């Protein structure tokens, strides 16, 4: 059974600081997703990582994937208050008809303070 673990689950940061969220998964998968969720809102797709060594950046967020280590990271550079949200990683699990099912980590609640 595919399991996805994120850490930390809670992260309180000061503006301007850097930090990294980690996502480990238990079995082979070639697709890893990062989503952002604001309180009471839906999930917003941030990154889709498809291959070993993939790195994607958008603004202050950068995601990377190491399929051999089964590890993805979401790096936050010079955090600003607007980045406060819950961040989820998810891995495409299953095969055949269930290959699109996403298995989610528990989420990292990020709070950026002045």
């Amino acid at each position, binding site marked *: 059974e595919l399991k996805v673990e994120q850490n930390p689950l809670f992260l309180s940061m000061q503006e301007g600081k850097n930090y990294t969220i980690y996502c480990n998964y238990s079995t082979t998968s070639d697709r890893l997703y990062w989503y952002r969720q604001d309180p009471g809102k839906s999930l917003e797709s941030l990154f*889709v990582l498809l291959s070993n060594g993939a790195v994607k950046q958008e603004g202050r967020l950068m995601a990377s994937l190491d399929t051999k280590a089964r590890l993805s990271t979401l790096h936050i550079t010079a955090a600003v208050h607007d980045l406060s949200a819950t961040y989820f990683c998810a891995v495409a699990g299953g095969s055949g*008809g269930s*290959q*699109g099912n996403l298995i989610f980590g528990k989420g990292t609640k990020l709070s950026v303070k002045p």
Partner: protein
Amino acid sequence: DTAVSQTPKYLVTQMGNDKSIKCEQNLGHDTMYWYKQDSKKFLKIMFSYNNKELIINETVPNRFSPKSPDKAHLNLHINSLELGDSAVYFCASSPTGLAGPHYEQYFGPGTRLTVT
């Protein structure tokens, strides 16, 4: 244009009732999903469905049933609602099996179900 829409946004009902949540996508995707987000914000896949195959997560009670009148719609029907069914339910869609160059999975706005 809204890509994945759900109705209603909020649903409050009593235990034992039967209710449905509707989902529509205008992305031309072949596969649709239902996820449940519990009070601890944990997201779990319930169903995936395309026009050929229904995949049911084995942990989902059979009181929950997806119904798809056509490729653009996947509704969720829940019988005999229980307190533990209170959660936010998200519909999502993607190209079939996330295959090909389009790997995105798009989520609807969610339906907050409260069972009293």
